């Protein structure tokens, strides 16, 4: 088990390096000159030239790359050319917000999607299956920004149940930062009011973000369950008089979620990057809006760092997925 995880981790390093090369080349091919943007609105050409030298932007690209990789190896992601803040700190502040949102969205997708997928499979080619399939496809097909605005109109404006935007009501003091996860920090500080408030702020963006994943999870759970239901052991278990609900929700489900778990891993990477629109509409202080901002201003350090980060999270989640697979299906673990 441990060896398995270590081997997977070792495989990740060259992949990340490859990712870094690709991103680096790509970003450096972009014609916008960070020095111009950095210098600001009222800058003179001389000021711009000075900045170019100061940040080594006049050096050959391979040299810039070598310097960069050297620093990344020491876990130094550099400093944003614009905010002059260490990128590491910005990311450490923002990543938890995005992860919190992503986890909640995934949780909604999974807790709704898996049961719906099973129900759909049990009613294969009957009306509940049709209805569920159409609705779950609608989940993917609905543009997130449209859903987001509609949810805002309904829940924040019309009904007034949930806050419109942000991660915490502006009059509430923030809890001390321990983990960076707002809800967790609220709990650590024993701030129940802030905790409830933070959860309420999470609701709409998480719901919006969950829709795309929901459909995928319904789809794969349905296929997996259909597949499992064909297996001999299901007939055997029925013949042996297993209780129906336990048969479906325990004995069948555990066999049919392997494909779903793989999808969760793939979704996770997509959700982090795909949260951009949702974060923008709900003013969520996460990594998505940070990325867009970096791209719009041409902040190379940040673009590189974010790509590296998303790549790492993606790889980590996929290793985790493999581990979960192993736990779900003991046969895989033995094959290694």
């Amino acid at each position, binding site marked *: 088990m441990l060896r398995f995880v270590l081997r997977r981790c070792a495989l990740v390093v060259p992949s990340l390096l490859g990712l870094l090369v690709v991103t680096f080349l790509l970003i450096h091919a972009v014609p916008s000159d960070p020095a111009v943007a950095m210098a600001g609105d009222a800058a003179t050409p001389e000021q711009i030239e000075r900045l170019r030298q100061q940040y080594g932007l006049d050096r050959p690209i391979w040299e810039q790359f070598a310097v960069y990789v050297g620093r990344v190896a020491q876990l130094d992601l550099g400093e944003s050319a614009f905010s002059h803040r260490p990128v590491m700190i910005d990311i450490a502040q923002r990543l938890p917000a995005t992860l919190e949102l992503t986890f909640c969205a995934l949780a909604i997708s999974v807790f709704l999607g898996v049961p719906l997928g099973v129900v759909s499979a049990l009613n294969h080619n009957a009306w509940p299956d049709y209805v569920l399939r159409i609705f779950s496809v609608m989940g993917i097909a609905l543009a997130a920004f449209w859903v987001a605005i509609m949810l805002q109109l309904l829940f924040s404006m019309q009904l007034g149940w949930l806050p419109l935007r942000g991660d915490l009501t*502006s009059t509430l003091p923030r809890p001390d930062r321990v983990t960076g996860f707002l809800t967790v920090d609220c709990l650590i500080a024993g701030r129940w009011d802030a905790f409830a408030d933070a959860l309420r702020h999470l609701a709409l963006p998480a719901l919006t973000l969950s829709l795309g994943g929901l459909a995928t999870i319904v789809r794969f759970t349905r296929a997996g369950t259909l597949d499992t239901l064909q297996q001999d052991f299901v007939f055997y278990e029925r013949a042996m008089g297993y209780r129906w609900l336990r048969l479906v929700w325990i004995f069948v489900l555990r066999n049919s979620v392997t494909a779903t778990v793989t999808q969760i891993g793939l979704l996770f990477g997509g959700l982090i990057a795909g949260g951009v629109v949702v974060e923008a509409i709900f003013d969520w202080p996460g990594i998505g809006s940070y990325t867009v901002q970096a791209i719009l201003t041409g902040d190379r350090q940040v673009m590189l760092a974010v790509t590296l980060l998303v790549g790492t999270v993606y790889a980590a989640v996929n290793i985790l997925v493999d581990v979960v697979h192993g736990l779900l299906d003991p046969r895989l673990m033995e094959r290694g």
Partner: protein
Amino acid sequence: MSGRGRVLRRREIGTLAAGAVAVGALPALRIPSASAADASTFVSGFGLPLNLDPHQVYDVPMQSMMLNAYDNLYRYQGDPPKIVPWLAESHTVSDDGLDWEFKLRPGLKFHDGSPLTAEDVVYSFRRVLALALAPAGAFLKILKPENVTAPDPLVVRFKLETSYAPFFAAIPSISIVNPRVIKANEKDGDWGKTFLASDGAGSGAYRIVPAGYRPLEYLDMEINESHFLGWKDNPKPVRKIAYRPTKESSTRLLALLNGSLDCTDTNLPADQVAQINESKIAYVQKDVVMRTFVIRMNNTKPPFDNLNARRCFAHAFNYMGFITDILGGYATRDPYPMPEDLWGIPKDAKGYDYDLKKAKEYMAKAIAEGAPMKRPIELHVQSENEQSVQGAQLFQSDLAQIGINLKVVGSIWSTLTTAAAKPDTTPDMWVHWVSTYFVDPENWVGQMYDSQFHGTWKASAYYKNPEVDTLLRKARALVKQEERAPLYQEAIRKIMADSPDIWIYNSMQLQGLNKRVKGRRFCTVGQGAEMRWITLDG
């Protein structure tokens, strides 16, 4: 006997129904909404600058932030803007315009309680010059760090290299910072750049709360009880400012309408005005600001190197249609290359009007002179800016009528400014605003049409007229407004005759405000973001 196969079905439907009931029950979990804001907290929708250091960043959001957290020697106040003493009581200038002396008020204090003296002002200016970032632009060429001195704890002296009239106009752009706080947080002689990017070291009416800051997301400030102006003129000031800028225009509107935002930023689209004014809770404040909207033409690229061609384009834009219908009338037609109400405008000069007949005539002339009017022309716009995109589309459909093929190309600010650094990469045409960094013709015509600024985006028409250069340079070196005004008038007449760009309007700033906001004072510099005058009802 068919019952057996169906037993399953009944169960499954049961499961489904149970799910539906559970979903239906969710609203029952409703929790009463927390009150949006109390009467001591102002939730501001003003945008946040890239970082908090007023010596590194100088743009519109920074202006509105630093007016609250920092103080300046002089400050623009009122509408129309007047430059008034602030930390300084008064100033003197020598006849040659080279020696400037500012006298500070006594008893000034920073947020940490330490006294603010002339030495601190000197440090602040030297820091600006050493960092040489955006706000240094106006000073780098005319001021050496060693020529800023403090002969007395209350006197700051500047000795300029050359006479430069806009020097005084740019004084309010420099914030005075607390060297003791900065030096304590300096790393490798970086002038505390990293520290001040996310913290405060000022003396302003409000104090930055570093724990309440996340770049471009949120910022909290709390009141500075011991601000040098005191609070007698505003007995019930805002205790806390919560900057919560919105990213989406729809969210901004909704937040204002549900009371969770006390003011929007100042870029409210005209089409949202009616919706806000119809609400019970908010209204739209209209203010004329000095911010001109211009379509640039690259005068080095054919056909724009041809005067008749440029005039043709200038006559083909539907100025009033754009202003009346698309901007809902919330802008004033400004045919001049700078704000109409600024001094130095030649009121007798006639601008270009929307007249496709004239445009056609000029087009014929241009073609006769060999200008390639039929080639596809590219107009670059900032994709994220709805207004410029609409303007471009309007232009496109009008030009199509006279047989000119205009292509609208979406782009982003950093790409555009990079491209504008060289004449051959500068697009055929592009669109931008020119905001007020300091209230002086230099901010517009001076930097836009003096050929010495070629290579900066502001001068991206690559217009070159030696007579204009001479006039602008002469005006720049004089101190007295009476002497400078005629020079600018003359220069502008010549520029307008050459039609290097298409000047469209001067902006009217639209800002949504909650009705509980009272006591707002507007000034075009800072866009009414100064909070110390504001009181919240209720």
